[in-house]
C-alpha cells in the first residue's frame, strides 16, 4: 500500500541484512575484460597484446575527455576486443589474464604493493599549501581514472561542469534508487571519513562553497554522523528519485547543487593521499535470486559470471539487471564485465509483469516529476497527428530518472515519450 501526498515515489526496500555487514573484497581468478575508454584508437593504448602488466599500471594515455584505464590486477594482456557494455555503450576492452601467483598470502601482496609504489614516494596525509594541493587534486582527478559511478562521467569533467555552471553545494551522493541495492550508501557508511576528505578535496578543486554528505536511510545517516567527519550529513528521506528530489530541495533554497558519487569521493581521497588509482569498484549483488547477497569490492573488469558464482544463485533465475532499478539495463550475457557504473547487480527469479492501459489522467506522473514536466501531456501530444509546440515547452529539462514510468498506474513508458518529445523539440519538426 502506498500512502502518500508527497512528491516522489516511496520504494519498498527489499534489502537483506547481509548488506549491512560491510564490504567484502573479491579477488579475480578468471579472465578480466578491462574497459579502455577511447581505446578504439591504437595510439591511445599504451600496451600491446601479449605484454605483461603490473597491478596499477596505466593501459591508456591520459586524455581530458575520457578516464585513464588501469590494470586492476597483474597479468598478461591477451587481446583487445570491442564489447557492447550495458551501461557505457560500446567500448574497447583489454582481455587480461591474471597471474596465478597474484593470489598469494597477504604479506607477499603487501611487498608487491610497496614495490609498485616505490617509484614515487607515498604521500602522507598532510596539508601542503593550498595552491599546490589544488593542482594535485586536479591532476589526480584527471590521471587516476576516477569515474563518477552515477553518470559514468570522468571526475575531471564533472568538476569542470560544476565550476562552469556556477554550483554552490557539492554533495557526496550515497543515494541508490534501487529496492535491492545500496552500493554507494554502503561506501558512505563504511568509509565516511575517506568520503568526506575526498569531497573536501573535490570542493577545493572546483571552488564549491559548501559540502554535504547525503545518505539514504536513517541507519546510514546515523552511521555517517557518528563518524564525525566534520562535513554536514543529510538524509535524503528514502523517496525515489532521491538525487533529483534532493537537487530540487536545494534548488528551491537557491543553492545549485552538484553531485559526486561516494565511490568517486573515496577514490579521489585515495588517489591524492596514497597515490592509488581507481582499480576496483563496490557493487551490490542482491535480489530474490541470490542466496548470499552482499556488497562486494571487485576489480574493474571482473565478469558478472564470476561475481555471481560467489553469491550462490538459485537455479531458476530469469532476470539479471545492472545499475539501479529505474535506469538499469537487463543483461543476458553474463560474460560482460563489471564497470565503474555497474553499482548494483540484481538477480530476480520472478520479474514483475506489467500490463499497459490507456492513460486515465490521474496526474501521478506530474506529481513525481522533480523537474515540473507534465508527462501525460507529452503522451497526449505525441499521440496526435501534429504535435503542439506549446506543450513541449519544458521537456528538455528531463533528467531521465524514469520516476514517471515507475509511478504510472497505466504502465505507459512515459520517460521514453518525454525523451522522444525532447528530440522532436530539438529537431523542430513537429509534424
Amino acid at each position, binding site marked *: 500500500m*502506498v500512502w502518500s501526498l508527497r512528491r516522489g515515489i516511496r520504494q519498498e526496500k527489499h534489502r537483506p541484512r547481509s548488506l549491512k555487514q560491510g564490504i567484502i573484497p573479491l579477488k579475480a581468478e578468471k579472465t578480466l575484460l578491462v574497459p579502455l575508454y577511447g581505446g578504439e584508437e591504437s595510439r591511445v593504448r599504451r600496451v600491446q597484446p601479449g605484454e605483461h602488466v603490473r597491478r596499477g599500471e596505466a593501459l591508456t594515455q591520459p586524455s581530458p575527455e575520457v578516464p585513464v584505464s588501469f590494470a586492476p590486477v597483474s597479468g598478461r594482456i591477451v587481446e583487445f576486443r570491442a564489447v557492447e557494455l550495458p551501461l557505457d555503450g560500446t567500448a574497447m576492452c583489454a582481455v587480461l589474464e591474471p597471474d596465478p601467483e597474484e593470489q598469494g598470502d597477504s604479506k607477499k601482496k603487501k611487498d608487491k604493493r610497496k614495490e609498485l609504489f616505490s617509484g614515487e614516494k607515498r604521500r602522507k596525509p598532510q596539508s601542503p599549501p593550498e595552491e599546490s594541493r589544488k593542482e594535485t587534486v586536479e591532476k589526480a582527478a584527471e590521471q587516476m581514472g576516477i569515474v563518477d559511478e552515477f553518470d559514468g562521467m570522468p571526475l575531471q569533467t564533472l568538476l569542470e561542469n560544476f565550476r562552469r555552471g556556477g554550483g554552490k553545494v557539492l554533495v557526496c551522493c550515497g543515494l541508490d534508487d534501487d529496492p535491492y541495492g545500496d552500493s554507494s550508501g554502503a561506501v558512505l557508511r563504511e568509509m565516511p571519513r575517506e568520503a568526506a576528505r575526498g569531497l573536501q578535496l573535490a570542493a577545493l578543486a572546483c571552488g564549491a562553497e559548501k559540502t554535504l554528505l547525503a545518505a539514504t536511510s536513517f541507519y546510514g545517516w546515523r552511521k555517517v554522523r557518528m563518524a564525525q567527519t566534520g562535513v554536514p550529513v543529510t538524509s535524503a528521506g528514502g523517496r525515489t528519485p532521491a538525487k533529483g528530489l534532493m537537487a530540487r530541495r536545494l534548488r528551491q533554497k537557491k543553492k545549485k547543487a552538484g553531485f559526486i558519487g561516494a565511490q568517486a569521493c573515496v577514490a579521489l581521497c585515495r588517489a591524492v593521499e596514497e597515490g592509488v588509482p581507481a582499480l576496483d569498484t563496490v557493487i551490490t549483488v542482491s535480489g530474490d535470486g541470490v542466496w548470499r547477497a552482499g556488497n562486494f569490492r571487485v576489480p574493474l573488469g571482473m565478469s558478472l559470471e564470476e561475481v555471481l558464482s560467489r553469491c550462490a544463485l538459485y537455479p531458476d533465475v530469469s532476470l539479471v539487471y545492472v545499475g539501479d532499478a529505474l535506469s*538499469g539495463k*537487463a543483461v543476458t550475457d553474463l560474460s560482460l564485465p563489471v564497470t565503474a557504473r555497474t553499482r548494483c547487480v540484481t538477480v530476480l527469479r520472478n*520479474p514483475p509483469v506489467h500490463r499497459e*492501459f*490507456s*492513460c486515465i489522467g490521474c496526474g501521478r506522473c506530474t506529481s513525481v516529476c522533480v523537474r515540473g514536466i507534465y508527462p501525460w501531456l507529452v503522451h497526449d501530444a505525441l499521440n496526435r497527428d501534429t504535435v503542439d509546440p506549446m506543450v513541449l515547452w519544458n521537456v528538455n529539462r528531463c533528467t531521465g530518472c524514469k520516476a514517471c514510468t515507475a509511478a504510472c498506474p497505466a504502465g505507459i513508458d512515459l520517460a521514453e515519450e518525454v525523451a522522444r518529445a525532447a528530440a522532436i523539440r530539438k529537431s523542430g519538426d513537429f509534424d
Partner: protein
Amino acid sequence: MKLIQGKAPFYRREQTVITMMDDVAACLAALLVLPVLYYGPRPLFSAAAGCLGGFFAQVLFCLLQRQRISVSQRSVLVTGLTAALLLPGDVDLYIPALAAAFGIFVVREPFGSLGRNTFNPAAAGVAFVTVLWPEKVFRFPGVDFLPLWGEGVAASRVEDPMSMLQQGLIPLLRPVDMLLGRYAGPLGSTAALVICGCGLFLFFRRTARWEITAGFLLSAAAVAFFFPRAPYAPEISVAYELLTGSLLFAGVFMMTDPVTSPRMAGPRFVYGLLGGGLAMLLRHVGAYEEGVCFAVLLSNAAAPLLDRAGLWIRTKGVVFRGKTFRAR
C-alpha cells in the same frame, strides 16, 4: 539458466488502474452497508442490477466491435454501483440497469473505452433515466424494511428533505439522522459520514484528488450560505444543502473521476468550483429537485478547456498589476 531481456524501470509502483478501480468499487460497496441495515436486502438487488446492466452493455459492445471481451474491467462495476446508489432503494430494477447500460454503451465505449471518455458514464446514465422517468427517480421510500419485489411505501412529504427544500419549506431532520443517512433520499448518497470516510481513503490513496472535492463543496456551500432556498439561518442552509441529496456523493465519487476531470491542480480546483456552482444553480432553478448529474456532465465538458487554460497560464504566465506571474 535462461535470462530474459527486460526493460527499465524494473521497479514499478504497485498501484495500477485496476487497483485504483478496486479502491473506488470497495468504497461504493461500503456505502451499501447502511442502506442494507435500514431497508433490508433490497438495495443489493438494485446494485446487482446496475452492475449486470453495465456488464451486458460492455459484452454487447465488445461483440459488436469484435473485440476481446474484457470481463476484468472494474470500471463497469464502478459505473453500475454509482448508478444504483444515485437512485431510490425501491426503484424498478430495470432503471439502474438501463442507466449503467446507457453509460457504458453510449457514453464510454464509443469514445474508446476507459481513459478516453469525455463524460462520466454513471452521471450520463442517471441523467438519462431522470429525463425518462423523473417521477420514479425522485420517489424515495421512507426508512423502513422494503419488500423484495415491487415498490415500498413512499415517504411522506415531511420525510423527504429534497422536495421540501425545493418548495421553500424547512425540513426537520435530526443531525444524527443526516450524518448516518436515516432519511428519504437516494440509496447510497445519504450517509454523509461514510461518504467522508471513503473520500479520505481515496484522497490518501491518491485515487481521487482532494482539490476537486474542496472546490466543489466550497462553491456549493458559498451558494447555500448567500442564497438559502428557505427562510432559515445561512449556516443551517449550508448543512441542509450539503448533507441532503446526492451533492456530497457526487463531489467525492463523480467529480473526482480522473478520466473526465482536468489533470492539473489549479484547473481541478476551478473545475470543482464550477461543478458546485452549477449543482446549486440547478437546484435553485432546475425543473428537478436534484440536478447534480447534469452539473457533473456540464463541468465534464469544461474540463479540457480548463486544462488548456491552466497550460496557457503555466507557459505564458499571467499579468497582474504590471507583473507577470509564471509557474517555475
